[in-house]
C-alpha cells in the first residue's frame, strides 16, 4: 500500500472509530443535558466544550497525562490513541448538535408514547431518537469532519508513526518536512474527503427531512 493510501485508510479508520466512541458517550449525555436539570449541570456543559476552546496541544498534553505510559489505559502513540484524540476533539460538536435536536423534540409526543405503554427506554428508541435523527446525523458528520482534520492534539498524544498514527493531516505535515516529497496528492485527498463528508451530510439531512 502506498503511503498516501495507507494514510487515507488510517484517517478514515481513526475518524470513524473516534466518532463511534463520541456517539456512544454523547447520545446519553446530550439527552441528559436536553431533558434533565441537576446540580453542577453548568460545570458539565463547560467541560463538554473544553476541547473546542483549549489549544489542541494542551488537550493532547492532558490526554498524555491521563493515558500515557504507566496509566491504567496506556494508549498514547497507538491507533486507538489517535481515535481517542479524534473522538475527544469532535465530541463537543456532536453533543451540542444532538442536544439542540433533542430539545426540539416535543415532550408531549414522549408523553403520548408513555401513555401507550412505552417505558422510557422504548420511548427514547421509538420516538425521541427517530425525531432527533437529522441532528444525530449532522452531529456525527461534524464530529467526523473535525476528527479528519485533527492535527495538533494528535501529534502531541499519538505521535506521527507511519501506519499507526500518521493520518492524512500528519502525512501532509511530514511531506512538507521532507525535501523531494510532493504534498499535493495528500492535500487533494484530504480536501476531497472533507468536502465529501459535508455533501454526504447534506444529502442525508435532506432525505431525513423529506421523509417527514
Amino acid at each position: 500500500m502506498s503511503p498516501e493510501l495507507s494514510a487515507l485508510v488510517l484517517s478514515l479508520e481513526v475518524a470513524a472509530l473516534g466518532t463511534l466512541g463520541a456517539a456512544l458517550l454523547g447520545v446519553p449525555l446530550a439527552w441528559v443535558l436536553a431533558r434533565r436539570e441537576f446540580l453542577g449541570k453548568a460545570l458539565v456543559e463547560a467541560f463538554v466544550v473544553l476541547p473546542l476552546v483549549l489549544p489542541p496541544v494542551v488537550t493532547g498534553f492532558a490526554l498524555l497525562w491521563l493515558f500515557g505510559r504507566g496509566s491504567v489505559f496506556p494508549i498514547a502513540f497507538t491507533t486507538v490513541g489517535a481515535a481517542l484524540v479524534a473522538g475527544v476533539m469532535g465530541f463537543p460538536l456532536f453533543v451540542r448538535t444532538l442536544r439542540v435536536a433533542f430539545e426540539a423534540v416535543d415532550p408531549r409526543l414522549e408523553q403520548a408514547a408513555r401513555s401507550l405503554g412505552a417505558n422510557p427506554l422504548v420511548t427514547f428508541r421509538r420516538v425521541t431518537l427517530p425525531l432527533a435523527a437529522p441532528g444525530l446525523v449532522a452531529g456525527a458528520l461534524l464530529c467526523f469532519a473535525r476528527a479528519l482534520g485533527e492535527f495538533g492534539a494528535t501529534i502531541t498524544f499519538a505521535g506521527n508513526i507511519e501506519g499507526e498514527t500518521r493520518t492524512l493531516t500528519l502525512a501532509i505535515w511530514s511531506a512538507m518536512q521532507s525535501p523531494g516529497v510532493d504534498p499535493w496528492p495528500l492535500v487533494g485527498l484530504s480536501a476531497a474527503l472533507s468536502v465529501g463528508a459535508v455533501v454526504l451530510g447534506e444529502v442525508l439531512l435532506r432525505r431525513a427531512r423529506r421523509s417527514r
Partner: protein
Amino acid sequence: MIELDLRGDFCRVQVRSEARRIAVFGPSGAGKTTLLHAVAGLTRLDGRVALSGRELNTPFVPAWARRIGLVFQDDRLFPHLDVRANIGFAGTPDADAIEALELGELLDRTIAGLSGGERRRVALARALSSDPEWLLLDEPLTGLDGPRRARVVELLQAKGLPHLLVTHTVMDVLRLSDEVLVLDGGRLLGQGDFFELCADERIFALADQSGLDNLVGAEAARDLLRVAGPRAGQALSIRPEDIILAADPPGRMSARNVLEGRVVSLLEVHGRVLVEVDVGVSLRASLTPAAVSELALAPGRPVHAIIKATAIRWV
C-alpha cells in the same frame, strides 16, 4: 370504578364513582385535563388515584404501566410514522376501530397530510389498539362531523371499555356517560345525573353556556319527528328554547311537529323554567316563568310540544 382524592393546587377533587362511563364536565380552565393527566400518570398530583380498585398513586405507577388508552385533546400523533405505524405503535391495530372510523384508506398516509378530523380518528384508533383496561378521552368528539361522532359513540359502546371522558360539551356528556362529575376552578361542583345536577344554579349556568340541548335517538325519533333534510347521524338535537308548549291543540301553522304529551317536571333556574315533557321521548323546553304560570303548567298536565322541522339538527 374510579376513586380519586387529588390534592393538587389547581385540581382538588375527592370522588368515587361506580359508573363505567364517566364524564367530567366543566368550562375550559376548570382543571379537567389536569385531572385526566393525573389519572393517566402524566401529571403527578398528591393524593390517591385508583382505577378498578388498582392503586396508581401510592406508590406511583408510571403512565406506561397503567394500562390506559389516552386520547389527547391535541391528538399527539407521531410525525415520523405513517398512520398505520401510529395506530400500531402500542400493539396490533384494532380492526374494528379502523373499520368503524373509516381509516382503511388512510393507513399509508403521513401524519402531516391529515385533516383535523382524520387526526382525531387516528388518535382514537391508536388508543384503542394499545389494549387498555381504561380509556381516558379528552374531548374525543371535537372536530368530527355528525355521522362520524355517531360512529365513535357506537364504537365505544361496542368495545365496552370503562371510560373517563373530559368535555365541555353537554351533548358529549349525554351521549357518552352514565354519570357526570362537574368541575369548575379545579373543584368538584357535583356528581350524578346531569339533569338532576342542573338544579344547582352554578351547574345549570355552566350547562347553559355550553348549550343544554335535547338529544333524541334516531330510532326513537323515526315515528315521532319530522326533520328537515336527509338523515345524517344517529341522533337528533333540539335546543330547549326552540320548543314551544301549547295548552290547547294549535291550528294550521308552518311548524311540522306537534307532539301530544304530559309535563313531567319543572325546574326553575336563572330566571327560566326547564319544563320536562314526555311526548314519547323526554324533551326539555325552556320557558319564561310568566309563560309557565299563564299555561298553569304542572306535573301531569297535558300539553302539546311544537317544534319546527328546521330547528332539529342531526348529530
